[in-house]
C-alpha cells in the first residue's frame, strides 16, 4: 500500500513541470488566438488592450505568430501580419516590450525559410532596431554649384563677402544660389544689402535684376532710394525694382509706383499696387491723371475697392473719353449710397443700350452689402412705380434679391421680361411661375425651371417627378439631353424607367444610357457598403 502510494506521488511530481509548462503555453496560445480573432482592431482603446498582453508574452508570442506565416502564394497571411505589425507598433512605446518583441523577431527570422515571410519580419524588426540602418552618403562637391554652396555653408554667418562676390559671377544660377542662401540663413540684412548696393553699378544687367528682386523678396526698406533711382532709369531693372517696391511698401514707394502707371511699366506697377501693403491714396492721383494713367487708376481703384472714389468715378461715366473705363470700374467702388444715382443712369440718363449690363452689375454691387430684404426694399421702390421708365431693366436686380416678395412681384407682372428675370432667381418659389410659363410654351423658362429644381429640390422622388414632367414639356433634343443628365442625379425607379424608354431613340439613347451607367455606379457605393468594402468585395 505504502509502496503504491509512493509510486503515485512520484508520478504526480514528475508530471508537475509538464503541467506547469502546458499552462504557460496555453496562456500564450490563447493570447495569440484572441488577437488573431480580433484583428484588424477598429479603435485605439481596444488595440492597446489587446496588444499589451501580446507584447508582454513576447518573444514567445511573436515566434508563435511568425511560425504561422505561409508562402505568399497561399494568400493566408493577412491576420498574422496585422498581429505582428500591431505588436511591433505597440511595443515601440516601451523599452522592455520593444526588447522582447525584437528578440522574438530575431528568433523568427532565424527560423524562417520562406524569403517573403523573412523579409516581412526583417522590415518589422527594423522598426524596433537600435541602430540606424540607413546612412546617407555625403557626396563630395562635384559641380561648381555644390562647391560654391559648400563654401557658403562653411562660412556660415560670415558668408556676406562671399555673397557679394558672387554677384560678379557670370553664372546666373550661382548668383541666385548665393542670394537664396542669404535669405534662407537670415543673412538678408540692411548691412549685407548695403554691401551689395555698393557694387550695384558695376554689375551686369542680369545681376542687377537678381539683386533688385532679392531686395524686394526680403523687404529691405533701407534700399528704397536705390530702387526709386532704378525705376526712374527704366529698362529691365526698373521692372524688378517696381516689384521690389511693391513688396516693401511705404508712401514713397506708393508714389513711385503710381507715377509708373500708364507708362512703359504700367503692367508691373499695376500688379505691384494690387498687392501693395497698406491703404492706397488714389483720390488725388485719379483727379489729376489723364489718358492711360487715368485708365489704369480706374482699374486699380476698382481692384482695391477704393470706395472713396465712387462719386468721382460716377461722374466720369458721363465723359466720353473715360465712360467705358469708369463703368467697368464702378462695381468695385460703389456702395448703397450710389444706388439711386445708378438706377437713374440705368433707366433714364444713359441712352446707350450696350451699357445696360454694366449698370445692372454696378447696381448689384452697390446693394451687395445690404440684407436681401433691404435690397428688395430699394429696388421695389422703383419697380412698383407704374410710371417708372424702363423698369423692366430692374427686374433682374429684383430677382437677384432672392426674396419671396420679389418672386411674388415678378409673378404678378408676368410679362416676358419678368419671367426671364425669374429664371435667375435662387428662390425655389420661382419654380411655380416658371413651370406655368413653360407650359405656355416658353422654352427658356422651362430650362430655368429645370435648373432650379435640380439645385433646390432635396427630395429625390419629387425632383425626379418634376424633371420627368419637364422632360415631357421639352421640345429640343439639347434640352431633353440636359434633363436626362440631371435625372441621373435623382436615382429613382421613375427616372430609370424614363431613361429606359429613350434607349432606342437615335438622338437620346446614348445620353440615357450613360446617365444610367452613372446611376448604377453611384448605387454601388450607396448600398450601405463603405467604398473600401465595395472595392475589396466583388459581390458588393
Amino acid at each position, binding site marked *: 500500500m505504502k509502496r503504491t502510494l509512493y509510486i503515485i506521488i512520484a508520478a504526480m511530481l514528475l508530471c508537475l513541470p509538464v503541467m506547469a509548462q502546458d499552462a504557460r503555453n496555453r496562456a500564450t496560445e490563447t493570447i495569440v488566438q484572441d488577437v488573431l480573432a480580433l484583428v484588424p482592431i*477598429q479603435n485605439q482603446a481596444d*488595440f492597446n488592450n489587446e496588444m499589451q498582453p501580446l507584447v508582454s508574452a513576447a518573444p514567445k508570442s511573436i515566434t508563435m505568430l511568425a511560425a504561422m506565416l505561409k508562402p505568399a502564394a497561399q494568400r493566408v497571411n*493577412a491576420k498574422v501580419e496585422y498581429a505582428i505589425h500591431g505588436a511591433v507598433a505597440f511595443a515601440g512605446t516601451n523599452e522592455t516590450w520593444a526588447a522582447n518583441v525584437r528578440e522574438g523577431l530575431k528568433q523568427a527570422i532565424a527560423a524562417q525559410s520562406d524569403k517573403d515571410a523573412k523579409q516581412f519580419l526583417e522590415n518589422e524588426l527594423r*522598426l524596433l532596431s537600435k541602430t540606424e540602418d540607413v546612412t*546617407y*552618403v555625403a557626396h563630395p562637391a562635384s559641380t561648381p554649384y555644390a562647391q560654391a554652396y559648400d563654401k557658403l555653408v562653411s562660412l556660415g554667418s560670415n558668408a556676406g563677402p562671399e555673397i557679394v562676390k558672387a554677384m560678379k559671377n557670370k553664372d546666373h544660377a550661382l548668383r541666385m544660389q548665393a542670394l537664396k542662401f542669404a535669405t*534662407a540663413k537670415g543673412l538678408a540684412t540692411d548691412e549685407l544689402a548695403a554691401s551689395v548696393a555698393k557694387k550695384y553699378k558695376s554689375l551686369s544687367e542680369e545681376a542687377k535684376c*537678381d539683386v533688385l528682386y532679392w531686395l524686394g523678396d526680403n523687404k529691405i526698406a533701407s534700399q528704397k532710394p536705390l530702387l526709386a533711382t532704378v525705376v526712374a532709369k527704366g529698362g529691365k531693372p526698373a521692372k524688378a525694382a517696381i516689384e521690389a517696391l511693391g513688396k516693401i511698401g511705404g508712401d514713397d514707394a506708393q508714389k513711385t509706383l503710381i507715377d509708373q502707371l500708364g507708362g512703359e511699366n504700367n503692367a508691373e506697377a499695376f500688379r505691384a499696387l494690387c498687392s501693395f501693403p*497698406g491703404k492706397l491714396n488714389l483720390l488725388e492721383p485719379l483727379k489729376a491723371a489723364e489718358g492711360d494713367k487715368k485708365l489704369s487708376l480706374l482699374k486699380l481703384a476698382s481692384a482695391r475697392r477704393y470706395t472713396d472714389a465712387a462719386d468721382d468715378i460716377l461722374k466720369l461715366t458721363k465723359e466720353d473719353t473715360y465712360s467705358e473705363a469708369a463703368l467697368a470700374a464702378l462695381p468695385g467702388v460703389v456702395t448703397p449710397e450710389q444706388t439711386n444715382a445708378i438706377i437713374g443712369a440705368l433707366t433714364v440718363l444713359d441712352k446707350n443700350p450696350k451699357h445696360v449690363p454694366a449698370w445692372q452689375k454696378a447696381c448689384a454691387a452697390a446693394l*451687395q452689402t445690404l440684407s436681401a430684404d433691404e435690397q428688395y426694399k430699394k429696388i421695389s421702390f422703383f419697380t412698383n412705380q407704374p410710371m417708372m421708365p424702363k423698369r423692366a431693366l430692374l427686374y433682374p436686380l429684383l430677382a437677384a434679391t432672392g426674396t419671396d416678395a420679389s418672386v411674388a412681384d415678378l409673378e404678378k407682372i408676368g410679362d416676358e421680361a419678368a419671367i426671364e428675370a425669374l429664371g435667375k432667381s435662387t428662390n425655389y418659389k420661382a419654380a411655380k411661375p416658371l413651370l406655368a410659363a413653360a407650359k405656355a410654351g416658353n422654352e427658356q423658362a422651362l430650362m430655368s425651371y429645370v435648373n432650379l429644381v435640380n439645385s433646390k429640390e432635396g427630395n429625390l422622388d419629387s425632383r425626379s417627378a418634376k424633371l420627368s414632367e419637364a422632360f415631357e414639356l421639352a421640345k429640343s433634343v439639347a434640352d431633353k439631353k440636359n434633363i436626362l443628365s440631371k435625372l441621373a442625379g435623382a436615382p429613382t425607379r421613375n427616372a430609370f424607367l424614363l431613361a429606359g424608354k429613350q434607349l432606342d431613340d437615335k438622338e437620346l439613347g446614348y445620353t440615357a444610357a450613360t446617365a444610367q451607367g452613372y446611376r448604377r455606379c453611384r448605387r454601388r457605393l450607396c448600398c450601405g457598403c463603405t467604398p473600401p468594402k465595395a472595392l475589396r468585395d466583388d459581390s458588393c
Partner: protein
Amino acid sequence: MNRRSFITKGAASAALFSILPREVLGKMGTKNDIIAPSDQLTRGLIGVGGIGRSGSHFISDQNCRLVALCDVDQKHLDSALSAAKQKWGEDLKSYHDFRDLINDPNVDIVHIATPPHWHGLMSVIAANAGKDIFCEKPMTRTIGEGKRVEEAVKRNGRVFRLNTWFRFKDTFYGLGTEVKPLKKLVDSGLLGWPLKVRISGATGFAWKFFWVGKENLEVQQVPKELDYDLWLGPAPYKPYNIHRTHQTFRGYFDYDGGGLADMGQHYIDPVQYILGKDDEFPIKVEIDAPQQHPDAVGIWRNITYTYADGCQIILEGEGFESKGKVPYIEGPKGKVYKGFECTIPNVQQIINELPDPEERNTDFLECVRTRRQFALNESNGHHSATIVNIGVCALRLNRTLNFDPKTQTFINDDEANRLVNQPMRGEWAKLI
C-alpha cells in the same frame, strides 16, 4: 515643307536658322514672340502610364519642348511615343532607365511623374546632375527624402516645382472659392487666432478612400512588358500583383499612403499657405483609425495636426465627417463655410478693400530662365509634404506622435523615427 517640319529637322534646321530671318519662320510661342530653338527649354518626362499622359502634362510647345520619355513598362512607353508622333510629328528619345534620361544633355527640365516612392530619389539625382525639376505630388514618400531633396536643390542651385497649384489659382475643390480671399481674410486677423481648419467631405474635400490596398494578394506572373525590379526600385521586394502597380500602387505604404498621401498635398498645402506656416511644422499629430495592415493602406477616421501656436488642421475621413453645417476655418472671432459664407458681416467688402497677397513667381519656365524660386518649391513643398508624412507615420503606428520642427524628427519615439528615413533597396541607398 511646312514650318513645323522645318523646326524639327535637326542640324539642317539649325543651319538654316542662321541664314533665314526669324520672320520667315512665322510667329511662334505665346504672346507672338519668336523663340529661337536655342532659347527654348526642353523637358524629359519620367513615367508615361498615368498622370504623365494627361492633357496638362503630355504637351510640347515652343516655350518648352518635350524631347524625351522614360518608362519601365514598354507598352506605356510605346504608346506614348506613338502618341507623340501623332500629335507633334516627332520621334522623341525614349529611355528605359531614368538615369539615362536625366543624363541626357538635351534635357533641361526633368518631369517626375512616377509613383511617389521614386520622387525623392529621382529629384536628388536630377538636382545633382544639374537639371531643374518638375515633380508631381506628393513631393516625397518620407520626411527624410524631403530633407534630401531640399538640400540637393539648394546645393546645386536648381529650380524645383512641386505640381500642386491651389495656393495660387483655381477653385479649391468643393469649397467653392479660390484660396486668395481666404488668405486675405486670415491675414486680416478678423477671424482671430489660433485657427482650426477642417478638411472633410463636409467642407468639400473627398479623401479618396477607394485608394486602399488589398491583403493576401495573389502572386502573379510579371507581365513581359514590365521591368518589375526597376519599377520597385528602392521599395522592398514583394511578389508581383497587378494591384501593386499602375494607379492602384496608391494603396500600399511601400509606394504611397492611400488617399491621405495622394490628395494630402493638394488639400493641405493651401492651408499651410493660408495660415502663413510655410516655414513651420506641426508639433503633434493625433490619429483615430482602425489598425493598419503593414502593407495595405486602410481607411481612417480622423487625423488632427496641432501647431505650437494652437492652430490645428483636422482631417475627417469619408463617412466620418462632422454632421451639420461645418466651418472650413474656425477662429475665436469668426467662421468661414463652403462658398465663402462667413459669420463676419460685410466680409466680401472688407476683403475687397485689402491688398492682394504678395506676388509670387507662378510661371515655372520664367523661374527656370531667371533662376528665381518658384512659388511652390523644394522648401514649402517639403513642409506640406511633411504634414502628410507625419500623418502616415501616425497611421502606421496607430498612435499620437510628437514632432520636433527643428530636427524634423519625432520626440522620444525611435520607432517613429525609423519611418523618417526608410531603407532603400540595394544600390539605390547610395544615391541619395
